[in-house]
């Protein structure tokens, strides 16, 4: 069983932040939508753009470039919002653009090299090498705010 899982290819959604490519597992992605103006949330960190109405649900949207230390984005129509689900919580991630969907085998996902920056160490759970491209697999758990700690 475990062996099968390891050999099963994983589908990943690839998106761009500046020139860098990142990806998330397609299982975690609920939908991809265009940018709509968000309502700012008081007392929120800089990378939290605000909340939008996703068919009646209040959806927080994170400025992913800012979260990853690439500076604050100025959201526009060209930006995309990837709606991801982690446990039962949904969050929108603002990215520059969504490029493609790739299918990779587990063995093609390499551990994050030790030398990378602090950001990479905390938010990237692996590196996918594909046709000369280097795509960082985002660790959603770490990118998204920790509700437990916030409540405490």
């Amino acid at each position, binding site marked *: 069983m475990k062996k099968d899982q390891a050999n099963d290819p994983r589908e990943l959604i690839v998106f761009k932040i500046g020139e860098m490519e990142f990806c998330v597992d397609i299982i975690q992605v609920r939908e991809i939508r265009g940018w709509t103006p968000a*309502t700012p949330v008081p007392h929120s960190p800089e990378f939290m753009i605000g909340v939008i109405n996703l068919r009646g649900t209040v959806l927080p949207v994170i400025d992913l470039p800012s979260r990853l230390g690439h500076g604050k984005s100025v959201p526009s129509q060209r930006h995309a919002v990837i709606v991801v689900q982690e446990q039962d919580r949904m969050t929108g991630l603002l990215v520059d653009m969504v490029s493609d969907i790739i299918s990779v085998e587990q063995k093609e996902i390499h551990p994050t090299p030790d030398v990378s920056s602090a950001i990479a160490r905390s938010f990237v759970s692996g590196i996918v090498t594909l046709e000369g491209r280097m795509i960082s697999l985002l660790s959603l758990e770490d990118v998204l705010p920790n509700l437990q700690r916030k409540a405490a």
Partner: protein
Amino acid sequence: MDPMASIRDTFFQECEEQMEALEQGLMTMEEGDTSSETVNAVFRAVHSVKGGAGAFKLTELVSFAHAFETVLDKIRSNQLEPNPEIMRLLLKSADVLSDLVCLCRDGAAIDATQYDGVLGELNSTAEGAGGEPEDDFASIDFAPAMISFDLPTIDIPAGDAPAFEMPATEQVATGFRIHFRPHADLYRTGNEPLLLIRQLKSLGSIKCTCDTSALPKLADYKVNESYLAFDIELETDASALDITQIFEFVDGACDLDIQPLMAEAAGAGPFVPPMQLPEFDMPPAEQLAQPYVPVYAIPPAAAAPVVEIVSPPPMAAAPAPVPVIDVAQKEKPTSSGPAPTIRVELDRVDRLINLVGELVINQAMLAQRLGPAVASSGSEALASLEELERLTRDLQDSVMAIRAQPVKSLFQRMQRIVREVADQTGKTVRLRTEGEATEVDKTVIESLADPLTHMIRNAVDHGLESPEGRASAGKSEEGVIKLTAAHQSGKVVITVQDDGAGINRPKVLEIAKKKNLVPQDATFTDSEIDNLLFLPGFSTATTVSAISGRGVGMDVVRRSIQALGGRINISSKPGHGSSFTLSLPLTLAVLDGIVVSIAEAIFIIPLTSVVETLQPENKMILDLGEGSHAMRVRERLVPLVDVGQALGVRAEPSKPTESVAILVDTESHSRSALMVDRIIDQRQVVIKSFEHNYGPVPGIAAATILGDGRVAMILDVETIADSKQRERMESASKDAAAKWAKAS
């Protein structure tokens, strides 16, 4: 799902209703009404629980219910006088029974020693009353009872005997088994099966079971057809000829099969398939005496919470039993039958409510977008748009009403709390309830149970004096706690009032100072002292009692009431008692709010906390330095709160004279004026959870979606108006980023 499991669930749901009926009946009895109607209602409730429990082999429940029932039966037959002592025993038994039902439902282990005392008391009471001790009930075969649980048994009461006899194995008699299937013609010619069955009864004792197996699916149901058959067991000395004579007039209009009854187990009638109609949840036989309304159970009810929907039964849904039962009902008029209800999973209702919420938002968006165009183009489109708005609003109200339930069940639970605490403290207490029919959203009722329990316990334990204390104060020894509910301007107001000594203010203040909860040199008004009770870690009881806990009670009570969007107030009169008033929103799904703008952002202020709005003028403003201001409103000085700054959405402090001040009332009876830029609108908004996807934000209670589809925040007035909380909020804001940033 396992069909038995769903029947079991239905049984426990019904048990809950029976327990309510039981409690209510006992309360009525205690008040002195021991008419046979009341006693019968109590008996019926216990008996139904016993009957159902037998089907599921819940032996402990059956044996206790049996002992309970025996005593009730003695009262019913006037062998036992329901004096106060007996009443106390009955009430205690009701509590035990209710516990046993809960234990059985949860499949928990039952500790017989817990209720042995009460059981013994019941048995000795029953024996003391004389009369024949009953057979060993354990020997009664309960299996047939399952059948009666599923299918209606038309029962002709014979004198004083219980309305529904458990068929016992040892019950052997000669007689006949009659299968009687009336054709449609029989009804068409004006014949009535009930009369025939009644004639049969004149020959001996009968047991009649309705065979509904031929009943078609509702869609195929024809009004003029006859689908029901009756299986009658007749114990008689009469001959078969006597029986055929009874059916003489309907000969040809029915199938009739008369078989001599063998001398064997009478109750083991094989003719009734136990689960013929999974979609119908037939009431037990006893309930047939009441106006018959089919109760539909959604099959996968599981243990899902169920909301009761009170509605008139759809006529098409009333199946064949109607012609028969209609007559039965005329013959046996009963008092206050339960309102017709259907059981629906709470999830389904919630989904509907959510959808309607969406519709409301969409309607608002549509109106906003089409409004200008429609207004110029013609009145017809405008009228339709207005009609749509009205319909949407009506729809929303109706959907909300589905969730509304009377507070009665909640209040009845409090009777037990009072009894228990009164026992433990040795006080004599009477709980008076008023306004039990007041309807509140189910979630509000559920979340109210704990705080209310706390308040009632407190009222008995701390509020009321000891009997000696009362006597020396010239009061009757029996303390009275009044629990009332009423609708008041769009809110539900619940009051807990005791006639005890009232709050000992000097003592409260002394304790608060001793515990360093307030500054040593501060002076307080009476109402401020009363409100000290709500401080965390406060307790006036010099000895910590098991009942009221460690004084964390009132603090927790206030927090849970606030979480519901309600308020709690306290008022007290030394020597005359104290009164706690809860005011709660009717629903947690919508609220009326004032739409304001602050630094280009839109916020909603809940209307419930708003006292008035005004435009500050220079002469009203008092500069207190460091950017803080106060405002004089009718000789009262209220702090001016710059909401924009408090929330961190505005860098520069706003000028009071260029703002609108919204005067709000807060919990502690203190007033504050919130400064906002502009008031835009006043409207009802649908409350959306903010915390689910985001987490709690200080100063923000929830979110809503505006007509243009954008999200707006609903302000938490309590936090914003309270200067201490505001400071905490501002410092929390500085930590926010730190908290979010995950340490690597």
